[in-house]
């Protein structure tokens, strides 16, 4: 599907994270012996490969590369391997449920490593199941999340999402919500003709969403802003947004 003129992406993609996470860990946090741990499915293993390639570009070799099955509940063996091989940090790529378990088990085993990963580390679902001590200090790079916003409108929207769907709003919720309203605005402008909608999406420029502006590029990607977050206790803080160069 890649390269199809009918395919558009309204959330930052994993390829961006695979580049940015190692870069931030090595260049900003000064870590040079990371362990990599990812969920063993197409999502996690693809990211793990990308992260290893990005580390190689930075001339950094991972201390250990581990994975766990999506149904795995006990990741202690993988964590002990990473610790035994002398890692100074952990790049963690998974979904909120398993990322929660990894962080909990690291804490149980007394393994203290600077941890950085995808937005699961700052997802509300993850934070709800961790203590402040367990969550504290974890870094994440990913799509913009609503929890760090102080805008009353966004805070109210997050609350309404939680009340209606019983699920905390996250970066994906923001993306889906924005996508519906982006399409609505385009359909109002160009009507229901498929080709006209596609052309309008491909020409989208500075369309203001909840947290970011959307702008189409030649690949059909509309989202180009990511956030770097750090958990202070159970509260994620925005260290800074990253905008892709050229936008």
């Amino acid at each position: 599907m890649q390269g199809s003129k009918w395919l558009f992406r309204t959330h930052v993609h994993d390829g961006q994270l695979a580049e940015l996470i190692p870069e931030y860990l090595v260049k900003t946090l000064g870590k040079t012996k990371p362990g990599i741990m990812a969920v063993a499915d197409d999502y996690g293993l693809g990211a793990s490969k990308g992260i290893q390639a990005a580390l190689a570009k930075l001339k950094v070799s991972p201390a250990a590369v581990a994975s766990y099955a999506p149904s795995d509940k006990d990741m202690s063996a993988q964590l002990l391997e990473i610790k035994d091989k002398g890692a100074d940090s952990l790049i963690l790529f998974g979904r909120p449920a398993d990322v929660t378990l990894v962080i909990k088990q690291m804490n149980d085993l007394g393994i203290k490593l600077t941890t950085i990963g995808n937005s699961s580390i700052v997802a509300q679902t993850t934070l709800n199941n961790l203590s402040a001590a367990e969550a504290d200090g974890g870094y994440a790079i990913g799509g913009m999340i609503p929890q760090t916003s102080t805008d009353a409108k966004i805070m109210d929207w997050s609350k309404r999402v939680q009340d209606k769907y019983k699920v905390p709003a996250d970066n994906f919720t923001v993306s889906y919500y924005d996508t519906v309203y982006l399409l609505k605005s385009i359909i109002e402008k160009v009507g229901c003709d498929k080709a006209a909608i596609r052309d309008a999406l491909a020409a989208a420029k500075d369309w203001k969403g909840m947290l970011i502006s959307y702008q189409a590029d030649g690949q059909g990607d509309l989202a180009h802003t990511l956030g770097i977050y750090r958990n202070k206790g159970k509260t994620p803080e925005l260290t800074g947004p990253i905008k892709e160069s050229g936008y």
Partner: protein
Amino acid sequence: MGQLVVNGLALGSIYALVALGLLLIFNTVQIVNFAQGQLLMLGAFIGISCAVTHELPVAMAWAITMVAMALVGIVFMVLVYFPLRGRPAFLVILTTIAMGIVLENLALIVWGPLPVSLPSPVRGPPVHFAGVVVSMHQIFIFATLAVILLLQFFFLTKTRFGILMQATAQDLHTARLVGIPVNRTIAVAFAFGTVLSGIAGLLVAPIFLAEPTMGGSLGLKGFVVSVIGGFGNLPGAVIGGLFLGLIETFGARYISSNFRDAYAFIVMIAVLVAWPRGLFGEKSSEKV
């Protein structure tokens, strides 16, 4: 190495508890309950509703969960076992699988898809010994398994009702002929077996979180453990559980973490090839 042993034994203790519940029912009515894992999940969520949603003390949440699970066990028996009693065993087994799916979907509707943590009933800093970290919850898991084993041994061998249960397990029809209240005995087996699953759920939820789909894998591991130990053999199930926990943990560390779930089935096949009745197999293993 020591840390892997502790973690493997803690994981194995959970498998052993699931297997004990499974075998208690099997030994009484010769039916493998493939919904045992989903009953574990139900126990975890009842505990969470009490301790997290309604903020009751964790000890009270445990007590309520155990009573609720005993009732669930009896309802399960009435809905699944009694209507199909005397029919081919595979019909009952299929029904238990269907009940597992029903329970999973009910949990999804009631509690939602997100994982939830349950506080451990024991708190305190972990114990450090020769470079090994043992959490208070892990110590609690070992203690719980030991207490349940002792209680079960005492109940089955030293109490009148336990001996009646064993008699029912050996020959249901003769037991009925000599005046043993067979239905009451079966009800106790279902209640107790389900309570054991509930306890396993309460022990799992603080370390692995609870979610509606958590039961499938754990229930299957409980079955594998029962086969490894020799189907029907309670001490065999415990040893099989601990053995599998260690195999999984060491396999994930030294071979590959990608095949963690596969180790259980590889070990089961290897054990069955070498010892077709399992490590401590009894005659009842022929009825599986």
